[in-house]
């Protein structure tokens, strides 16, 4: 400080180039200028290109008639529906295969991951071989293998394989008996401008609302039982069979309501004709190949995550619960798994996201998920920018939503410290 006061420093002669603040500011300004320049150039080119090919911008095209058919759909759709509806069908199909895939992959992944830690040598080896095979083969290849190699060479409809419960397996997929309900469980939605229009009449027409109410009531009662049991255990130390009680409530009440409503459902069996099977539910080969390939592939990664998670719990924890006199099953449930989950959840989240993103591979075999429907829309309208914006918005929101849910779960599971 004294030297400064004496005026020995000569700031005037120091080049601005050696001032870190100035340098960082200058660098950022240059970055922004270059970026803005690039974007301006690209936007300019794009406008010029669009003008030349006579494509109008904007999302108005979404209200136009789609004109193409979608075979696999969860909501009503015909080729006369709008592009918007087609895209919604695509999004629902993406979500359908992602949800089914996540469930299946988690089950297989946990089984294989735990299997890799088994004391049985043979089981350990089988699980290792499974992991090493499936995680080193591209998922797209596996999808094509199932679709073209296995499902496409199944017999034609008239020589279908007959399976139990009057179901059939043939080149058109899996045919199962379907449950036909008299009425609907949920009200029908339609969009009136931006406001949703909710129509309750299909629910009220039958007696299905009784089952709806029973389900809600059962969940509420189970929640209450869990709360009470926890309070009682904290106060008196007495345990209550929470699991079995809630199970009985959640299954029993709706079943009771079902019979109280006069069993408003019939089973419809697929009928075999010469060229086609009519009635029943059909799982399409596209969906089946995509589901099998994605879940087997992702399961191999989940297995490794689970193994690492369980191995990440120190051995002292196992010894400690044995010392406390807990049995292996109880100890595993109360001591090891809660700690392992902390290690497992973050990488598990990214695997779920990967699976959802990989569902776009369905386009290779014609499964009508968002990407494939969007591609068709693009081919018909030429609205490349808008379609890409829709892709970005939908995939980013699915990613963010899954991360949010998993982060919430993770925070719930995390170690509570001070």
């Amino acid at each position, binding site marked *: 400080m004294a030297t400064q006061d004496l005026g020995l420093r000569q700031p005037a002669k120091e080049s601005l180039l050696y001032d870190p603040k100035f340098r*960082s500011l200058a*660098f*950022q300004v240059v*970055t*922004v200028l270059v*970026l803005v320049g690039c974007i301006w150039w*690209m936007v300019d*080119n*794009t406008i*010029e*290109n*669009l003008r*030349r090919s006579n494509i109008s911008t904007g999302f108005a095209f979404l209200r136009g008639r789609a004109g193409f058919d979608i075979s696999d759909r969860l909501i009503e759709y015909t080729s006369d529906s709008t592009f918007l509806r087609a895209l919604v069908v695509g999004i629902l199909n993406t979500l359908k295969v992602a949800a089914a895939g996540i469930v299946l992959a988690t089950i297989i992944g946990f089984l294989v991951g735990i299997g890799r830690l088994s*004391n*049985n*040598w*043979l*089981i350990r080896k*089988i699980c290792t071989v499974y992991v*090493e*095979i499936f*995680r*080193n*083969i*591209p*998922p*797209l*290849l*596996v999808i*094509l*293998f199932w679709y*073209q*190699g*296995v499902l*496409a*060479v199944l017999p034609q409809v008239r020589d279908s394989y007959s399976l139990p419960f009057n179901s059939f397996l043939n080149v058109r997929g899996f045919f199962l008996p379907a449950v036909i309900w008299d009425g609907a469980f949920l009200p029908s939605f339609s969009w009136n401008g931006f406001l949703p229009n909710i129509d309750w009449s299909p629910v009220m027409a039958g007696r299905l609302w009784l089952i709806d109410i029973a389900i809600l009531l059962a969940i509420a009662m189970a929640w209450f039982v869990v709360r009470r049991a926890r309070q009682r255990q904290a106060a008196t130390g007495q345990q209550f069979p929470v699991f079995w009680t809630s199970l009985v409530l959640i299954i029993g009440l709706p079943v009771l309501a079902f019979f109280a409503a006069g069993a408003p459902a019939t089973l419809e069996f697929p009928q075999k004709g010469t060229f086609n099977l009519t009635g029943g539910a059909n799982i399409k080969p596209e969906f089946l190949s995509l589901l099998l390939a994605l879940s087997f592939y992702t399961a191999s990664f989940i297995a490794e995550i689970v193994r690492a998670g369980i191995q990440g719990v120190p051995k002292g924890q196992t010894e400690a619960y044995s010392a406390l006199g807990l049995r292996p099953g109880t100890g595993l449930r109360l001591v090891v798994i809660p700690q392992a989950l902390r290690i497992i959840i973050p990488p598990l989240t990214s695997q779920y996201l990967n699976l959802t*993103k*990989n569902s*776009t*591979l369905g*386009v*290779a075999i014609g499964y009508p998920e968002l*990407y494939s429907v969007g*591609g068709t829309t*693009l081919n018909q309208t030429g609205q*490349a*920018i808008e379609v*890409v914006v829709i*892709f*970005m918005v939908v*995939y*980013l929101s699915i*990613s*963010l939503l899954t991360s949010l849910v998993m982060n919430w779960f993770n925070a719930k599971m995390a170690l509570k410290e001070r």
Partner: protein
Amino acid sequence: MQEHDLSWVRTEMALAQAAPPSQVGAGAWMRNNLFSTPVNSAITLIAALAIVWFGMQILNWMFFSAIWSGSDRTACLTTEQGGQLPAGWSGACWPFVSSRFGYFMFGRYPVEERWRVLLCGLLFLVLLVPLLTPRIPFKRLNAILFFAVFPFVAFFLLLGGYFGLPYIETQLWGGLMVTLVISYVGIVTSLPLGILLALGRRSKMPIVKLLSVVFIETVRGVPLVAVLFMASFMLPLFMPPGMTFDKLLRALIGVALFASAYMAEVVRGGLQAIPKGQYEGADSLGLGYWQKMGLIVMPQALKLVIPGIVNTFIGLFKDTTLVLIISLFDLLGTVKQSISGDPTWATPQTAKTGYVFAAAIFWVFCFGMSRYSQYMERRLDTGHRK
């Protein structure tokens, strides 16, 4: 008083006794690992039966019942389907693979020019093997040749048009060659780009940080198929009218950008693991930003994340198959094309055979990479683990 010393002191060590027979040998191992409890024994038996059954099925399909020679589809058809094989036959149709082998490797690259691809592959191996073998010296020269010189040599060799080599447009490229070209370019460009992005994300400059975060999170949030789609539909739209882009180049740009975002997150993990003292130490030595990063932080950070980097490479290698969706023909693309677009070999077994063949190639590459990364991890583990 007379003392009776009843104690006895042994003067030589007792000989070690052999372990009881129940604890050593194959019998004990089997008792411990396969038949420790009744439940375990039952599981072992069921698993062994399943292995034998499935193993026989697979071996039978691949070797014993497989067809090894033939000139067209009739060799692999049963009597019901119009061939000579007994009804109910099922086995691999290997002549399909051998007859299309050149296509699977090179695509439609002209046969008389394929020596260029082979030469390129040979150069690649000659440079790669010493680079990966720790014992061989001249690593710096080797790395410069492999990462900086080889791409130009390969470019002129494969594309041609100079030095008297005929020009081969990328439309004709295909097969394993395209898979390797895309992976090589993706790997070589994604590492430096990823390092830059990771540094940007940890930078103190708010705008640079913001841009890096937005880029990384956006790219990681969308599927590669959508990125490739953007690269193939949007890039031409962004360019001045009349300027066209090669399709392969568009895919390369898409793959490189995609992989670099993932690489950035891996590198960031490494950067976060370096203690603050290392940064401060470098600062106190008077090193500038790039010197600090290049000489002190990066060598340690990259070493930490080698498994992550190799995993990203493996993912990239598997993801190159997606270019078939924007109709480029990589290894999987050529196999698919031969299965669905070639009536000479249309049999019920063709698809299975072709995909098993492609899967074997992909598996060998990916498994090799993961094994090498494990080896490197053990070798570089100079940490102070107890």
